[in-house]
């Protein structure tokens, strides 16, 4: 198995491609089973952020068989309780613990200090320690491609985006999406509704319907339910899913989805721990690493559009195309990235402006 990993320091430099071989099952049979703990911020459910982590957990069980066993704890609040859950997992003999939400960052670091022999991997944070790695995916690459799909599909040239909180991660997704839209349809504009919640199907649906009533004929979201896909289906417009393939919530409406795939990262991490070679790393992988994938296209996506998307995807994977290749203008006309270079990881991590093509002003 070959996985290219991005090591991200403060300046997030690409350190290099590393090869990791899957440990030969015969060599490690004598070792005792590795217990792996997963801390989830919500129930697993049928789609969404946690569901994707759980798919990859099941992949671990399938690949490693009886060499590993996994434990999940669902709906762990991101407050005082997280530390106890993480600590109990460590105290109960789990040798590797994945904490899969930003709010677990400080608790993970605290517990890791008390359990130096346990390996921790925290998703989406920035604090590391000798036994704490961090990992995240370049979701914006998938967003860009779904933007291409949306821009090619829209007829009203109004595209709706339901978003949770204006943190850089979410803003980056909106901007990459819009860059994708505008790359194929310079007349289209993206409208954003902020709902101040990660998961609130009622509000998500309401926001989607507001956008649809304003003329949006494609909607997408950075929230955690399938409500907007269902809203699109019921209103006869199109939707682009996020986190998971959401096509079964609106078969005609669903164009595609940008999905998270943690399989490679989890397999690689387990291999490293089994081999006794776990190191503190910071992985920020994208399409090229298989951490971001588009789900199957729906019936409304033309063959022509599919071809463009395939081409762009290949270009991103090969490094010929960056969704934020300069010049990048914000929606007030200021140049944020000059022509001739693409955006740096540091600029990506602190993104706090809307790019050209988004209506309105980013809440500060």
């Amino acid at each position, binding site marked *: 198995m070959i996985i290219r990993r991005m090591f991200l320091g403060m300046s997030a430099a690409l350190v290099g491609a590393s090869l990791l071989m899957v440990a030969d099952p015969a060599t490690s049979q004598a070792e005792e089973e590795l217990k792996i703990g997963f801390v989830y911020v919500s129930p697993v459910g049928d789609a969404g952020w946690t569901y994707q982590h759980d798919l990859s957990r099941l992949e671990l069980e399938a690949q490693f068989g009886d060499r590993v066993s996994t434990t999940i704890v669902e709906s762990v609040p991101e407050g*005082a309780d997280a530390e106890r859950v993480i600590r*109990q997992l460590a105290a109960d003999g789990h040798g590797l613990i994945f904490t899969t939400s930003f*709010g677990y960052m400080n608790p993970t670091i605290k517990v890791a200090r008390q359990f130096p022999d346990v390996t921790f991997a925290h998703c989406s944070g920035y604090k590391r320690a000798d036994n704490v790695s961090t990992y995240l995916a370049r979701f914006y690459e998938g967003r860009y491609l779904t933007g291409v799909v949306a821009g090619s599909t829209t007829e009203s040239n109004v595209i709706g985006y339901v978003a949770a909180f204006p943190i850089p991660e979410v803003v980056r997704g909106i901007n990459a999406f819009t860059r994708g839209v505008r790359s194929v349809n310079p007349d289209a504009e993206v409208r954003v509704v902020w709902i101040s919640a990660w998961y609130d199907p009622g509000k998500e649906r309401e926001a989607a319907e507001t956008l649809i009533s304003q003329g949006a004929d494609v909607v997408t979201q950075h929230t955690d339910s399938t409500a907007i896909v269902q809203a699109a289906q019921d209103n006869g417009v199109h939707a682009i899913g996020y986190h998971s393939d959401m096509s079964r919530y609106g078969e005609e409406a669903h164009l595609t989805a940008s999905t998270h795939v943690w399989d490679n990262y989890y397999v690689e991490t387990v291999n490293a721990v089994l081999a006794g070679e776990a190191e503190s790393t910071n992985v920020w992988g994208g399409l090229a690493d298989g951490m971001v994938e588009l789900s199957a296209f729906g019936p409304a996506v033309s063959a022509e559009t599919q071809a463009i998307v395939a081409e762009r995807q290949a270009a991103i994977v090969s490094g010929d195309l960056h969704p934020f290749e300069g010049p990048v203008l914000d929606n007030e006309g200021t140049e944020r990235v000059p022509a001739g270079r693409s955006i740096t990881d540091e600029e990506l991590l602190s993104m706090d402006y809307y790019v050209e093509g988004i209506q309105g002003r980013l809440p500060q």
Partner: protein
Amino acid sequence: MLRLEPRQTTSVQMQYATPVIAGVLTIVAGIILFSSLGVDPIEALYTFFVKPLTSVYGLGEWALKATPLLLCAIGLSVGFRGNVWNIGAEGQLTIGAVCGGGIALAFYGDEGPWLLPLMLLCGGLGGMLYGAIPAFLKNRFNANEILTSLMLVYVSIQILGYLVHGPWRDPDGYNFPESRLFDDYGLMPVLLAGTRLHLGVIIALVLTGVIWVFMSRSFQGYKVTVAGQAPAAAAYAGYSRKRVVLISFLISGFMAGLAGITEVSGAIGQLVPVVSPGYGFAAIIVAFLGRLHPVGIVFAAFLISLMYLGGEALQINMKLPLAVTGVFQGMLLFFVLGSEVLVRYRIKIGTQAREA
């Protein structure tokens, strides 16, 4: 038709027996539930009720998790006895966390031993003032305090969200929505090395005693009780209803605010977008589970706390899904609260049920 009819007298023996009966029923139902899932029921029950308490750390967590429940519930019980319905302890808790946590952030880099007491004071006062809003609306405009206090919960969550997403965001935190970590002077001292148990539990127990004395010994406490049990008599005696409303909200708001600041200066150590997984609401159950009596509330707070820990232990040690632990927690509450009802009411099967 089934209906509930109040019993003329409630048996004293039954009042002591109900928790036992509820416990037995829970165990029987648990055995059925776990067996039908193919899980060893004895091991599951042990994991739920005993395993969390088999280590010093576990005992610390037990008391730690009971602390905010106890603080909120004991405060709420005052109003509930006086027929004043503060449903918004969660909001007062949140504002307490904001006010107390705001002090820690305001004096960042300039701390001293005075910081924590000031934070506690401001947290309590913040919750108290926030609780005064529904009391004012009730007394001035006769607005239903159940609605106003509940709605203010959502307002408080937005206020906290705005602050941690905006002005109080950690400047070194890559724009993630959380504040700086508080300085050590802003953290509750840990009582027991190796655990997270902090001074908050002592504060909660002491204040429980204070409120017990207030309700059973002071004239004002007596007025609250009379206002709840016999509103007409209270009015005849000239006890001010408005004062009862205000006092109830000030006390419960103060206690909830204190719960908020002890949470953020205790186990969390910073302001985050969600400081409480619903302690203010769970405290309503705790208050009634404890029959609005201080001793009962202490037991109830520890029971609910154990229920949370047991749910986690079932997930971690037995690999049972959250849904199953939720069902079991629900059954436990159902039996405890259900048998409470049956001590006070009898079920009548008849046709002469009054129209609601």
